[in-house]
Every structure is written in C-alpha cells, then in structure tokens.
C-alpha cells in the first residue's frame, strides 16, 4: 500500500521576462528557498525529481543533467520527467510516488524554465509539435491550437469574448500582491484585454501568459518525516494523469475529457466524491484565459459550459465560494512553463497552511486541487492536497514516536519564502552581457511520412482523400493510421472519403510564429471531413474572415494535377461550399 505523503516546504524565484541567473542558478535559488522554508539541509534530501522543457527548447542537450546540480542532485538518485506544460504538476506526482513507494523519505521536486535564451522567439522550438508532414507544410503557429480550441469552446456555449477576458483580469489582479509576479496589475479591466492586440482571433495579447524565466521547488516527505519537519504538513491525497489522442484535430476540443479522467483518478484516491463541495481552492492551469474555464469544467468543479457563469458571479474570485488561481496563475505571475505548474502546487501548500499572506483566501480552506496541461496539448495532470483534518488518514504511522516528533519540531515559517533571485535583465543588458554566447544547434531533419500517411499523400496527389477504416470501433480514421489507438488493433481497409466537410473550428491569425505581423491574416481551421470520423488542419480561402462560422460547410480546392506533389499542400485550401457535390 502506498505510504502517506506530504508537502512540507516550498520556494520560488521571481518570475521575470529575462533572468540574469543561469538555469542552474535559478534552480538553486528556488531549491534553497524550499529547503530553508522547512529548515532542511541538502544532506537530508534522499532523492531529487526535476522537470524542465525539452532539450530543443533551450538548445541544452541532456538539460535535466545540466540542471541537476542546481536542483541538489549531486550524488543522489535523480530523475527528470517531462510531460510538456503538464510537467510542473507531474513532477510533484513523481515526487509523490518516489516517497509513497518507500524509495525515499524526503524528496526535492524542482521545476525550472529559462525561455529567454531562445531566439528569435521560443515558439520556434514548439513548431515540431505539429505533425511534420501533415501540418508543418501549412506554416502553423502554436497560437493556432489555442485559438482553434478557444473558438470551439466559445461557439459550443455561445460565449462572448468578455466571458473569457474576465479570467485574465481576475488573475492579473490576483497577482498584484504576489512578490514573485511578472504581470500583476490591480487596475486592469476587461476593456484592457478586449483592446489588446489581436494575435490569432479570438486570442489577444492579454489572453496569453508571458514568456518567462523562473524556478519553483517543493519538499515532499513521508508521513513520519513530515511530522518531524513541520506541525502543518499539507498532504498529497490524490494524484491523477491522463492522455487524449495524439491526433489533436480528432479530439473533442470543447470538453477536456483527459483532464476529467485525471481528476477522477485523483478524486477517487483522495476520497473526494463531490468535488464542488469538497474542494475549497483550485489552481487550474491558465496559460490562456479560456483554459482556466475549460479546465475547471474538466476538473468536474462546474458543469460543461458553466464555468464562465461562475466567473461572472464572482465564485472564482479570491473571496468567492471557489477561489480559482488565487496565486494569479500563469496569466499574472508568469509562465516559465514547467515552473508555472509546480508554482500551483506551492500555492496550494501556502494557501492550505494559511501562509499565503496578502493572497490568502478567506475561510481556512482545507482541501485544494492543482492541475496542469500539456504534452501535445493532450495531457491532464492533477493533484489533490489537504490539511490535517480533511486529509484521508492512512492510520498511525508505523515508526513515528510522539516524543521524537516533539523534540525535533521546528518553528513555524509564517511568510512564504521567495528567493530574491530572478534578477531581470533589460534588453540592453541581455545583448551586452559579458561572456554571452550565441549558438544555434545546426541540425537538419528528414522526416518520413510512414506507411499510412505516405499512402494518404499519394492519394492527395491523385486528387483523393483517403481514410482508414477500423472495424473494431467502426470509425473511419482521417488522418489515416495503420493501427487504431482506441482498439489497439490493425486497421482494416482504405476508404475514399468526401472532399467536403465542415469547419470544426477556425482562427483568424495575424502573426507569424515569431510574432511578426502578417500582411494578410491567415485562416487556419480544423476541417471535419464528410464520410469520416476525423479531420485535419488546413487553411480556408475564398472567404472573408468575418464570414467564417463554426459548422460552415466547406470543400477542398485542389491544385492543378500537374502541380501536385503528394503533399498536404496539394489541397490549396478549403472554401465555403456553394453547391452539392456530385454523388451527394
């Protein structure tokens, strides 16, 4: 049986646009602040769990190992985990099972991100999350995914942009009292968000969390060790994580079922049967404002489509019935990606101990949930934490004796420890820094289309759109694959599907991936293909941006046969469908 596990300390650096500190130095500042907060020294740490973005992100190969000294891993068991944006919460889960399994009594969990090294824009490192063969030729921009999902969510529930923008306002206001925050602003209004630059409609500048540098660390301990270390441990009562399909254009973009699956796993473990009543404070993942609403619904705290109404009614405010992102979240504190997720665990730790200072939610919250999201935009990671009293007890600790606990009890730390580090560098200081080195990883890649997509591309060259039928689940898969990821069996046959479909969702994108403005906006869309159970990413044409609607019937416009090369670009674009297709 899993041992009971608690968080007993936490620390973080300031989140800044560009830190003077190296990644190692940021990791050390946060780690040391976490250890200082519970008066532990490094030799009392048994193992270290670390997370940070993929190596390609900052061009440091074996980045986990590079950061290990700053994370306190010298001479210790060490593991780096990575699940994209979900990493920060997941590294707390990793620390949980390192302790729950009995492998270690005290674990330091560390999350670091230094996004400022990447030029000209960190988004460039994300472009390879798009399918190299089917999507990258379309010139995608990471914002597309968010804009497409946000539009789908808004149109499913007929939401106004104000419903979404109020979350950015709440979080930036919440962050105003946070000593580590990058974008706290007490006087921001919905009009400010609605008036900010449109990047990829419906996403505007202030809907998005900023590029940031920073690090967070928490100390996780077994029950016996936790009782020795603090009189106010905060227990990790439930953990859950879950993945949706890697084919994001085939996914339900309205409701994040994978978050719900992860939440159910965590709630079951924590004995939470009525989340809305039993969870008192939430830190859902908010890299974009709509994501907080999306995730609150995925966390089963609100019915699908009902989180915006709760926000309007003030339920999510710090003094509301279910405070959400009282930290200020990624939108207010900042988004050094992996670190931002672990910041949510740290915030729950401070909130549930009553140590959150100016940010403290009233009413002595006893149980909270933290959640993050990422991978190929498909993972949900969830942690339920509780104070003594509500936390599900695993019975008396087998070895802890009250005498030793009393003898080694340490003073209560009243103020959350924030490292003073995270010194911002100006653009001039950054460009002129002594000893700075510019470097590009000079690697080129050649990606094979593979069996299924190779045939799909051959089909496009012939003016056909091919799907693959799975007789196990009865679906016609587009894009095609040789195996069905649900049934986990070989798919059965090739099927010609229609050249028409409907707009599942769309965006009006005004910027390139490096945030430079485009001369003409692009209209990326997920097209659900008629005669199939799937669809793919493409561009819309022959339509004014303002005339595009979710659900609009569209048809493929092919390049002339002589110009086709067996590429996703053999379809020039999709246009509104004027009349019935032959055979309809």
């Amino acid at each position, binding site marked *: 049986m899993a041992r009971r596990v608690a968080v007993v300390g936490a620390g973080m650096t300031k989140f800044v646009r560009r830190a*003077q500190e190296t990644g190692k130095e940021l990791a*050390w500042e946060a780690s040391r602040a976490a250890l200082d907060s519970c008066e532990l020294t*490094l030799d009392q740490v048994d193992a270290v769990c670390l997370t940070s973005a993929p190596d390609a992100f900052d061009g440091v190969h074996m980045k986990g190992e590079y950061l290990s000294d700053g994370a306190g891993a010298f001479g210790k068991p060490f593991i780096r985990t990575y699940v994209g944006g979900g990493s920060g919460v997941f590294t707390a889960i990793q620390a949980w099972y390192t302790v729950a399994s009995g492998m270690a009594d005290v674990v330091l969990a560390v999350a670091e991100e230094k996004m400022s090294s990447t030029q000209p824009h960190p988004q460039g490192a994300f472009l390879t999350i798009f399918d*190299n063969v089917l999507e990258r030729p379309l010139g995608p921009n990471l914002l597309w995914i968010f804009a497409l999902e946000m539009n789908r969510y808004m149109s499913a529930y007929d939401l106004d942009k104000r419903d979404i923008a109020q979350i950015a306002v709440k979080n930036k206001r919440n962050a105003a009292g946070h000593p580590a925050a990058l974008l706290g602003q007490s006087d921001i209004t919905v009009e400010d968000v609605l008036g900010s630059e449109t990047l990829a409609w419906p996403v505007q500048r202030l809907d998005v969390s900023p590029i940031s540098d920073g690090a967070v660390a928490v100390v996780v301990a077994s029950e016996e060790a936790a009782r020795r270390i603090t009189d106010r441990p905060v227990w990790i009562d439930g953990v859950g994580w879950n993945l949706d399909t890697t084919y994001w254009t085939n996914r339900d973009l309205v409701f994040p079922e994978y978050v719900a699956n992860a939440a159910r796993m965590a709630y079951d473990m924590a004995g939470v049967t009525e989340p809305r009543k039993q969870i008192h404070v939430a830190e859902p993942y908010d890299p974009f404002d709509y994501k907080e609403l999306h995730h609150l619904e995925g966390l089963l705290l609100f019915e699908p489509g009902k989180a915006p109404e709760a926000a309007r009614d003030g339920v999510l405010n710090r003094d509301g019935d279910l405070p959400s992102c009282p930290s200020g979240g990624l939108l207010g504190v900042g988004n050094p990606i992996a670190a931002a997720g672990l910041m949510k665990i740290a915030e729950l730790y401070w909130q549930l101990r009553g140590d959150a200072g100016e940010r403290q939610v009233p009413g002595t919250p006893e149980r909270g949930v933290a959640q993050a999201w990422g991978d190929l935009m498909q993972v949900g990671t969830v942690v339920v934490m509780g104070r003594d009293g509500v936390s599900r007890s695993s019975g008396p600790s087998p070895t802890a004796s009250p005498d030793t606990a009393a003898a080694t009890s340490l003073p209560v730390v009243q103020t959350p420890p924030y490292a003073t580090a995270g010194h911002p560098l100006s653009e001039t200081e950054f460009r002129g820094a*002594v*000893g700075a*080195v510019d470097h590009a990883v000079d690697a*080129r*890649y050649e990606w094979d289309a593979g*069996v299924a997509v190779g045939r799909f591309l051959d089909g496009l060259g012939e003016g056909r759109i091919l799907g693959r039928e799975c007789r196990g689940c009865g679906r016609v898969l587009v894009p095609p694959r040789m195996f069905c990821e649900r049934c986990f069996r070989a798919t059965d046959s090739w099927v010609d599907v229609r050249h028409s479909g409907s707009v599942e969702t769309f965006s009006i994108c005004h910027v390139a991936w490096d945030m430079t403005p485009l001369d003409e906006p692009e209209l990326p869309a997920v097209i659900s293909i008629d005669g199939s159970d799937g669809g793919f990413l493409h561009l819309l044409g022959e339509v004014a941006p303002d005339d595009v609607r979710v659900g609009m019937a569209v048809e493929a416009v092919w390049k002339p046969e002589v110009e086709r090369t067996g590429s996703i670009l053999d379809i020039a674009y999709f246009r509104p469908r004027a009349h019935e297709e032959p055979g309809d």
Partner: protein
Amino acid sequence: MLEKLERPDEVRRWNGRIPVSHRYTPGVAGDVFFTALRDRGVLLGSRCDSCDYTYVPARLFCERCFAELSADAEVGPGGRLVSFTISYTGLEGEPLEQAVAIGLVRPDGADAAIVHRIVDTGDEPLEIGQRMEVVVKPEEERTGSIHDIDGFRPAG
C-alpha cells in the same frame, strides 16, 4: 503491415529544422568570472570551506552542500595536466591539417579542472601530471570570453 522498402528514395519525406538559435548569458557567478578574466586576466574560482572544495570557473552555489559561494578565489595561473587528448579529425570526421591538443588542467588552488586547448607544446611529449600555465591574451584583445584564454602551455 510492415513493408520492406525496395526504393528508399521513393519514400515520402520532408526536410525541416527547428528554426531557433540561443543566446546564453553567463549568470551571476559567470558575470564575475568573465569580467575578472577580461579586466585582470585572472581565473576566479569559488571556495566552499565546509566541503573543502574550490570550484573553477566560479559558481554561485556549492553543489555538494548548497551553500552560497563568492566568486573570489583566484586560482592558477599555474596548474597540472589531469589528462589530454590529441585530435586529428574535425567535427565531421575530416582530417585536420594541424592536430589539436586538448587538455584538462587543474589550476593551482582549485579542486576542479578546466578544459581548454594546449598550446606551445614544443617537442616534448605531453605527460599527465606535468606542470602547465594559462596563456591569457593581451589585455587589448580580451573581450570577456573563454577565448580570452588562448589555452594552457607546458611550464618549466
């Protein structure tokens, strides 16, 4: 399902790259190290008394005990050769016109070693454990870079 490729050149493939470069700034301890190298031509390390260990280049913290360190322990300019290699090929495996000697040198006063080129090797073969000294560029050529050091050379 698995098909043997008879004509690999006919496989559909796409070429691409990750279109980013990086700018690395040297951090808190690195700033002090490179400034001292540029302005004074010296190697600065960081001493941790409790671990009895001197790092070089300087570091902000001791990775052994997590103590905060100062970048104020001047080490070198002499040192000992810990190990070396002589490289006859370049990154792509091409033969080099002039072989390059690379050494790991522990500067006097330091426990850590630095990797750099070995210059002015002369006719004597290199020997592990031999005395070395750092070769720093003239002041007017120094910019605050690891190249402010030309390398290490055998010392008499």
